[in-house]
Each structure stands twice: as structure tokens, then as C-alpha cells.
């Protein structure tokens, strides 16, 4: 799984990526030194849980992808089957070109099947 993240991190603008479960357990991680793994995982889990709850209460079901775009960075969270792929990106780079790579990485992670920690 780290090889999937390593390929993803080569994409322009990607600062790091990790795979987390919905309760914030890190399955695999490759982040730049500026990012704290535990912190990013915890915050990503919070986003996943709260987004899921909000969408469910609105009757819209599960989400496949969420992007939090902020002034100094972007975080893309993609459903990857038993876990979620979290990609942290530079704010100067458009997500569009990276989206294909992210979707491809999520699919490869999904194909791993059951994830054991």
C-alpha cells in the first residue's frame, strides 16, 4: 500500500497521503515532514464522521469524495472501500489533474480487500 501512496505523492502538488479507517487508525502513511501523521489522521477521521452524519441526516447517503479547500492547502478524502484515502495538497495547484491519480489510487486500495491493522 505504501507503493500506491509513493506513486500518488509524485503527483504535482501532493504534499502527502495516508490511508485511515473511519475512526482515525492509520493503515499506511507517507507525509511530508511538515505534517503530523497522528494529527492529520485524527482530523481526517473527524471530517469523515461528521460529513457522513450530515449527509445521512440530509437523506443523501454515503459520500464518495470530499474536498476541503482552504487558504493554505487542500485535503481530499476519498472512499477506498474499507478505509479512506486522504491526500493533502498544496493550495496553489488545481485538484483537477490530480483527481484521476487519486481515483486510481483509491481503486487500487479498494482492491486490497479487507484491511487488518
Amino acid at each position, binding site marked *: 500500500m505504501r507503493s500506491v501512496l509513493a506513486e500518488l505523492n509524485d503527483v504535482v502538488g501532493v504534499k502527502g497521503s495516508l490511508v485511515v479507517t473511519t475512526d482515525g487508525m492509520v493503515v499506511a502513511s507517507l507525509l*511530508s515532514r511538515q*505534517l503530523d501523521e497522528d494529527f492529520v489522521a485524527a482530523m481526517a477521521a473527524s471530517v469523515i464522521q*461528521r460529513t457522513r452524519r450530515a449527509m445521512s441526516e440530509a437523506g443523501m447517503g454515503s*459520500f*464518495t469524495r470530499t474536498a*476541503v479547500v*482552504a487558504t493554505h492547502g487542500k485535503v481530499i478524502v476519498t472512499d477506498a472501500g474499507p478505509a479512506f484515502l486522504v491526500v493533502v495538497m498544496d493550495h496553489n495547484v488545481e485538484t483537477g489533474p490530480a483527481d484521476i491519480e487519486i481515483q486510481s489510487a483509491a481503486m487500487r486500495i479498494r482492491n486490497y480487500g479487507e484491511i487488518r491493522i
Partner: protein
Amino acid sequence: MRFLDRLKRSRELARLSRTAWSTPSPTALGELAERHIAAGEIDAALDVAERGLELFPESDRLRQVRVFTRKKQLAGRIRKLRDEIGRHPTPTAYTQLAELLRELGYDDEALETAARCAERFPDADGPHLVEGRIRFDRFLQHHIARDAELAEDALRRAAERNWSNPQTHALLGELYHLVGSTAACRHHLSALVELCPDDQATKAFLYDLTNQPSTSHVDGEFGDRAREVEDSGVFAQAQEQFPHSSTAPIAVTRLNSEALTSHIESLAAVAGMRNVLILNEEEAVLAARASEDGLEPPRFARLARSLSASSRTASRRMDTGELVRVEVQCPAGNVMVARAHGVVVAIQHGDEIRSAAAWTAVQDFMAAHIEQTEVAHA
């Protein structure tokens, strides 16, 4: 290119410029800037991007133009510094490179360069000063407590390594001033005055600070004070009071809420739109529209508020700054909640319109109703 072709192009650009500035929008100004780039007019493109970003700070397109053009301008210097670091690394070269990257807006690369310098030259204050400056600027812009804490940490490291750098004391003094840590502010301004005895403005300010009747000798926890600033959205002390305050005045744009709400149909009419919602800063509903396949407005409003709140907290805590927008995709529909210019605009759209196009539509909708531009400090 022949003279007549150049003249024709020049006239066309002039016409485009007049049109773009008469009814500015991120799209119009982005196109104008890109036309300047295509014409080789890098300085003109940069000017459009910078002026455009004052009006539309959330525009990705204008930000990318600015980064591109400034990179073009600074490419030679950056290459030279990288070569120098490769051949004969010094703290000065690293620090200059980090500063250039910071100017370009490549904060992460600047921080990475500063970190490499700090590892290689542990006694150098330069890299810590660069890191402190980046974090301080972010705190000025967005009032996020984490940025203030990281700024303080970095600047204190810089001061420990080189007590004789006036810039470090000036930044620390201003940081403490902004969170209301008066005793710490006085401490660093005293050091600054010793290093720069001719600085009358700082002397006068320090005198006033020392002789305030309510001056406390105990500041309390810096982190707590920074969080008070984040929660209130307001600095403990006015920035313009501080001598040689570090930022220039900025343009502040607000949206005409009445015009926005009365023209909501124009956004609702975009193909694929199912819900459009406008909230004010307090997240009260100003206007809402829902198509047949959209959610009922009260339900959509609850969804928008929830997504906005959770994403805003996450973006601050994950060190990505202040939330601009959150996008959520699911088989039932796609939701976007954007915060800009004092309002929140939320939409739900189907797959007939791509997220990027939906974001452009939202930006152009907001741009059409900008009310005023006032000049303020950060």
C-alpha cells in the same frame, strides 16, 4: 511579429482590459491575465492577478497566474541560489531561497528549505525567522491560533540563536501585542530599542505601554490568548497602533446581501442546480431556492451549516488555513459550501455540471454583487 499585428493585439488587450475592469469577476480577470501571459506581458499579467486577488482572494485561477508570473520573474534568482546551495551551502543562501519561495506563496517549500537549513546549520537564526514570518503572516490574515503558536515558537528559537536581530524582536513584539501579552511585548520592544536607539516610534510606543494604568505584569498562557483571538476573530489590540506594523493595508470586499438574495435565481438557473442557499456571517438564511429534485430548504440549510462548521474546524487544525469551500460528492448529488466576502453560498448540483464549473458559477455570482472595497489592516 509584424507591427500591424502587434498594434491589433495591443488594442484588443486594451479593450479586454476595459471590459474586465468595468465588471470584474474571477473569470474575466483570469482571462485577461492569461491573455497578457500569451502576449508575453508578464508584468501586466501579474498586476491583473494581484489586483484581482484583492477583490477575489478565493480565486484559484488568479492565484495560479500570480504564482506563475512571479515564478517567471524570480526564476533566475531561484536557480542561482539553488546552484549555490548545491555547491557551497550557507545559512544565508538557504534563508534567501526560503524568503523568495515565501514571496512566491510557496509556503510549504519555503518551510521545507528553512527546515533543511536549520538541520544543517543548527546555530543559524535565519531559517527560524523565515518560518516565524510565514506563520505570523498567516495569523495576521486568518487569526488562527495554531499559526500564532507556531510563529511564537519559531521566533523564540530565532531570538535564542541571535538576540541581536531587530527584526525578530519587532515580530515577536507585534505578535504579543496582537494577542494582548503586554509584558512579553514590552520585553521584546525593550530589546529592540536597545538595538535600534534611533527608533523614536518604538520608544514612544514602549513608553506608553509601560505607563498604562492597567498594564498587567502577568500575561497568562500565550496559547489561551491566541485561541481567544481565533474565537472572537479580532485581535486583542489594534494592529495599526503598533509602530512600523508589518503589513500594508489591504482591500476588504463585502457582498451586497440584498442584491445577492434578489438575484439568487441567476445562480439557481444554471443547468444542474438543485439547491441554492445564501447565509449571512451568522449563518442565518438570507435566501433559498430548490428545484423539484433538490432538498427542502430547511434540510439543505442544516446540511450546509454542518459541513461548513466541521470543515472549518478541520482546515484550521490541519494547518491548511481558513476554509474557502468544501465539496462533497455522493451518488445522490454533489454539495458545495463556499465562504467568502462575509457570506456563505451553498449549492447542490447534479452531474450535469462538473464541480469546477459549479465553483466558477458561484464565484461569478458573488463577483457580480460586490458592494464596497474598504482599506483595512489585516
